[in-house]
């Protein structure tokens, strides 16, 4: 049996007293007394002023719909919070922030000061999604009021983006990735563009950034190639269109086969795409990049009967896919070069081959103009569905 010394008892009581007394200094944040901002939008409002719109999740036993939209004006995002607090009966906190919307106007001018305020707030996670509004951010957040609070826009937008990121439709636009791409020399961020469609919000495309300002945007078709270049597909889907002449060679000319063409072109849908992309600096002096794209896929749908039973025709289709994809990828790379934006991270690849002094942004911008590409695409059709 251990003896209980008096000094031990004293120490113990001092410890526990400090624990209890100083507990009063800790700020309590009981969940039910908070207004949780789940999504915020930022717009430019005249000169030197931003308009902030926030969707606030509240917990009220009396009412069923418990979200509220608060609009306020200020110079900084923290100032906005102060203004918003005046309009709320519950303390507004940002710990449950899921997504942020910047208006197109703001995005064109640069968003880094607003993103930086997110970075500095410890209660905001790194997995917050950043998005750009097709027009204004408040227009998108007003959907919440138009739906009478039933939509729960904060989680809705979060799930909208998350679902599409997981479905390999868009590139993950988290705060973490934005920061990485923004602060990394030789890489630029991309963010999805949201658009209002009736009482709903949809992803309309992807905005290409130069540093922190929006430069251009990609529509749905090009998104596939952008993702191939930046990321990889594990189970992607893509439809390709060809004229009848291009695929005449492998079409089935059976009289009994009475499938009438509906479209003037032939569309082939490939899915289960697994892509691997390798971007390599082959010539450092002439800045020549070799882009190798490997795609394994399965043909799942075609609008006209193609004779895929023969190996030769599968090879023919693969070749066709190669050439058309190569054209699009080259087009995309040249477009990026002309705009001076680098979402793929060619600068990163270039810097990896440098010894000694790291490259500055200006240097890379200058060099980027002279970059040339060598694109190789190789498609492999592994299966053509279960019919044959």
């Amino acid at each position, binding site marked *: *049996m*251990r003896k*209980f010394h008096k000094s031990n008892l004293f120490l113990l009581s001092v410890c526990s007293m400090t*624990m*209890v007394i100083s*507990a009063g200094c*800790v700020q*309590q*944040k*009981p*969940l*039910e007394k*908070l207004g*949780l901002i*789940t999504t915020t939008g930022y717009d430019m409002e005249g000169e030197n002023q931003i308009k902030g719109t926030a969707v606030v*999740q509240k*917990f*009220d*036993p009396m009412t069923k719909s*418990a979200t509220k939209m608060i609009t306020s004006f200020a110079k900084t995002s923290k100032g906005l919070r102060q203004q918003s607090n005046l309009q709320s009966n519950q303390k507004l*906190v940002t*710990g*449950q922030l*899921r997504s942020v919307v910047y208006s197109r106007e703001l995005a064109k001018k640069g968003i880094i000061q607003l993103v930086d305020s997110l970075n500095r707030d410890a*209660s905001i*996670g790194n997995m917050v999604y950043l998005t750009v509004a097709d027009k204004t951010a408040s227009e998108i957040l007003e959907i919440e009021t138009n739906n009478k609070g039933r939509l*729960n826009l*904060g*989680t809705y937008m*979060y799930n909208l983006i998350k679902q599409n990121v997981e479905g390999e439709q868009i590139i993950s636009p988290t705060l973490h990735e934005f920061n990485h791409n923004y602060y990394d020399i030789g890489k630029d961020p991309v963010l999805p563009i949201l658009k209002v469609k009736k009482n709903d919000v949809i992803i309309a495309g992807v905005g290409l950034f130069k540093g922190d300002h929006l430069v251009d945007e990609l529509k749905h078709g090009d998104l596939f190639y952008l993702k191939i270049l930046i990321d990889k597909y594990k189970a992607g889907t893509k439809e390709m269109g060809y004229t009848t002449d291009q695929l005449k060679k492998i079409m089935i000319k059976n009289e009994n086969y009475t499938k009438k063409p509906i479209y003037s072109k032939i569309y082939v849908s490939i899915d289960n795409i697994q892509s691997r992309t390798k971007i390599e600096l082959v010539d450092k002096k002439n800045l020549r990049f070799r882009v190798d794209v490997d795609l394994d896929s399965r043909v799942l749908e075609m609008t006209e009967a193609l004779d895929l039973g023969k190996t030769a025709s599968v090879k023919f289709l693969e070749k066709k896919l190669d050439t058309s994809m190569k054209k699009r990828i080259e087009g995309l790379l040249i477009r990026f070069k002309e705009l001076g934006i680098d979402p793929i991270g060619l600068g990163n690849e270039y810097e990896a081959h440098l010894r000694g002094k790291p490259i500055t942004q200006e240097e890379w911008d200058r060099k980027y103009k002279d970059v040339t590409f060598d694109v190789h695409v190789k498609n492999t059709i592994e299966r053509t569905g279960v019919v044959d």
Partner: protein
Amino acid sequence: MFKRKTGNKQSEDKDKKPHSLNVDDLKSELQAVIGDCSDLNFRTLKKNGKKIVFCFLSSLIDKTSFDEFLLLPVQQNTQEEWTTESLAQILPIAEISAANQLKEVVASLIEGKAYIYVDGEPFGILANVGTTVERSLEKAETESLVYGPKISFTESLIGNLNIIRSNLKDPQLCMEDITVGKRVKTPGKLVYVKDIADEDNVNTFRQRISELDYDYIPDTTVLGQLIEDNSWTIFPQIMSTELPDRVTLSLMRGRVAVLMDRSPSAIYGPTPFLSFFESTEDVYMRWNMGFFLRMLRIISIFLSVLLTPAYVAVLTYHYEIIPSALLISLGQSRANVPFPPVLEALLLEFVIELLREAGARLPTKVGQTMGIVGGIVIGQAAVQAGFTSNILIIIIALSALGSFTSPSYIMGTAIRMIRFPIIVLAGLWGGIGIMYSFCFILIHLLKLTTIGRPYLMPVYPFRWKDLGYSLLKFPAQFLSYRPLTNRPVDNERFPKQKGREKKDVDE
């Protein structure tokens, strides 16, 4: 506190004095010592002017055997002279001894023996015709099992020893006599397997029990508390069980057990922390099931300790970490509740404890219905009335269930009790408070010892081989050694090589 005080040896010598050699004086002497015992009886016979007296406590002896085996032979014996020697020859009783010390006679009478004294003889005879009231063997109540032997200990020491002996027919099985208590001397047994159990462990037990200066020890559980290493802690350091197979399994692993008369449970040690979560069922089940159940128990204990404090901490301080899927349901149910989360949690934990305690005190049949009905009614009504949130009800129920998975009821109670300070600290400091209390408990456990052995044994100090016995459960062929934690003398259970061998059908 008590065991360190050694007995006073000089007084023992003074007490050595023979009783009076006259029957009438002997009677009055005995009357003087245990005179107020109303059941002290004398039966005097006379023959040829010589007196013979039978002294006994009527409540302790078996009437029929007294009549048949003591009185009858003496009365029928007409030829021979009445002397102690000749009486000893004719009494058909196995347990007989000679005595003339008053103290010894008194002690023997209390144990249920009868004292036969012939007038003028230097010695009398102590004959054991005692009987004790016993219940029959029953199923274990507090440690119920699905698999394995159902028999449990009773209050009879002899009966309990019988069960252990017949369970463990090992010639090396040692049963050492030991008296427990100073004023009321209860017979007890120190049980161990001689060439397995570590000498030090046996000595520690023997020394601690024999040096115990305590008036009356009613049960082995009390004895366990008195000989524990640290009596301030909430964690039990010596296992108490009512299952004989549990004791025999432990004995074969090199542990030492203590049994006491009139106590339906045995204690054994050294028992580190994790051994309180081992059930005998783990041994009887297939190893993979045993493994799963053991993991289940340990996880449930963790949940039981940390789930409610986590709820309190998250809802008071760390709203950021609530997943969005839970956010609305949590917030909506909390919005109804007028108390802060700490109070809410403490209140509900209190209600659950109340239900458990009330259920345990009531007769079995009523207790069960009351538990279920009370749980549902209080749970439902409390949510309806906006007293608690329904998510907390789930959490509290889960942690209560988790604490009951411990095979040792004492450890389960300990787990349930340490939850309260953690909840309070979680309410004061949030996650930091939980971490603080968790570290405190961990350090405390590290400092504890059981019979002089580290309390967190196979984990710290780390014994890789013992993990198969305590935290995990290995298949039988890999357990060719006895757990190192108990420092067994004979370490090998079976040859290691033989366990790995696979016999072909043709061999």
